[in-house]
């Protein structure tokens, strides 16, 4: 039972994260390859404030969101106006730098050892215990992220995002402030990733740099594209498939092979096959995806 709770919580954590990534890739056409780093920033700020500074969980999460948002503004304003490929490379560079900084600034982040003993959030003295309470807490947070993503994509801002994604020149000609729209959604996406980072820190009560590195970024991309980057429910389907699939290996897997490598190989193969045969993901029919 504990195992089922664990798998369900992990799926929910990824689902919220992938929903926030879809907001950028699928709806705004912003290929943020630094999404895992904002996830990590959220986790680390929460961990450092609650463990080292003894903050309460709520202000710590608020601070994590604000900090990730500020970092997103600082990195987004100069890079978003660059051309598509430049932006992608700059953000991949940023992703690598964030992980390097976490690993190398050991005075602040405890380096490669990570930060342990993050306290669980509590309400009125009731602590979110392991098992169903923390699962419920994660479900509420992920549900809130889904709601925010749904509200944004169906709002006037969502219509602007789609216009900017499909053709920036036309969008600008229609009177949309392209730069402002992009930086707004980039910041919102980063803040949502930070929320999920904080939740992840609370769930595992531990953060380490490798949980937010470029391999995790590739896992997130695989999850996003499996479900389809333009579909809200796709953000849940991708994590369900990619979390459950390796779990099966635990019981019937090949013996003697490094499972993590087999998984990583499958993610890579999946990305190639999806791009060739179902670029819209497995949830949506093609016609709808092209609207």
């Amino acid at each position, binding site marked *: 039972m504990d195992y089922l709770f664990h798998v369900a919580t992990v799926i929910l954590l990824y689902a919220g994260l992938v929903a926030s990534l879809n907001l950028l890739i699928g709806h705004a056409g912003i*290929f943020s390859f630094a999404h895992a780093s904002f996830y990590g920033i959220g986790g680390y700020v929460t961990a450092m404030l609650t463990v080292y500074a003894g903050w309460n969980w709520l202000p710590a999460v608020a601070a994590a969101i604000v900090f990730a948002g500020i970092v997103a503004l600082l990195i987004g304003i100069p890079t978003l106006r660059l051309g598509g*490929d430049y932006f992608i490379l700059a953000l991949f560079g940023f992703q690598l730098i964030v992980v390097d900084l976490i690993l190398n600034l050991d005075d602040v982040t405890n380096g490669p050892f990570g930060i342990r003993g993050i306290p669980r959030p509590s309400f009125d003295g009731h602590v979110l215990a392991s098992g169903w309470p923390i699962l419920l807490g994660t479900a509420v947070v992920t549900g809130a992220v889904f709601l925010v993503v749904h509200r944004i994509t169906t709002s006037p801002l969502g219509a602007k995002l789609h216009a900017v994604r499909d053709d920036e020149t036309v969008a600008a000609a229609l009177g949309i402030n392209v730069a402002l729209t992009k930086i707004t959604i980039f910041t919102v996406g980063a803040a949502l990733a930070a929320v999920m980072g904080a939740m992840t820190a609370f769930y595992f009560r531990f953060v380490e740099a490798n949980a937010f590195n*470029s391999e995790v970024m590739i896992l997130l991309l695989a999850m996003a594209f499996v479900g389809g980057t333009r579909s809200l429910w796709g953000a849940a389907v991708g994590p369900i498939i990619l979390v459950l699939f390796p779990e099966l290996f635990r019981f019937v897997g090949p013996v003697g092979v490094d499972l993590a490598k087999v998984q990583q190989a499958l993610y890579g193969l999946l*990305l190639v096959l999806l791009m060739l045969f179902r670029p819209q993901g497995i949830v949506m029919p093609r016609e709808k995806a092209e609207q």
Partner: protein
Amino acid sequence: MVKMLVAQLVINGLAAGAIYAFVALGFALIYNATGVLHLAHGAVFALGGYAFYVAVVVLKIPIPLSCLLAVCASAIFGIAIEALIYRPLRARKTEHASSMIASIGVLTLSQSVFGIVFGTDNLSVQTEPLKTISFFGLYLSYVHILVAVLAIIIFSAIQIFLARSQFGRAIRAFSDNPKLSRVFGINSDVVGALVYGIGSGLAAVAACLISFDSGVRPDVGFSIMFTALVAVIVGGAGYLPGAAAGGILVGLLQSLSLWPFSARWQEVAVFAVLIAFLFIRPQGLFGYAMMTRRA
């Protein structure tokens, strides 16, 4: 003493930079002609390194022949990626992003497969310390000299090929204007096969050279790819000698950053340069912008 240290770091940096230059030149050639952000170039590089290792250490083939085999293996891999993945995506006129995502997929897949087959250790063909010659207190290994000689010969050959030969002119025409060159009867599939073949071969040469030194490990493709990308941005991909020069500059910078900082800040230093260049001079040192057109 400090002067000697800096001079030695410059020599090491030039040698490492020449290796990045091979990878960056291949990437830039491919990028200019096809517009694909070919991140799987790192996988092609790693395959070359492993092919060389297997040929030299397992099959005991003489080194020059092994190098040739590695170049062929990488060229075939590169052309296969182009023919089996990028060409169908191009024919379907899907978003530019699809081929990049597929490219990341190939890089991830091959990195894991190399890890499963060869393990995660550094595999080097060099079993004993490199022989060095010293002059004025500076040390030069034979690999350093080999890198310099090969770089000069191969870069000149590529330059002459692109400037003078029929195929080279076709590549330049296609890079300049794909639609117009099709009108003039240039076959885009032939140009694709040519640039992927040559570019991948260049990566394999770099992989053979690195096999004498630090060796190859599964994630070498990933790290060298991003160093080469920084080189391409610093030099400007639109100008091939610029990409090569960018590689040498990045190698120098990486080596010299050892002097004030420790080795663990090398990566941060390289990416700080990337970000700085993107902010201040995105068109590269020589003013030939990279991402100006879409395939």
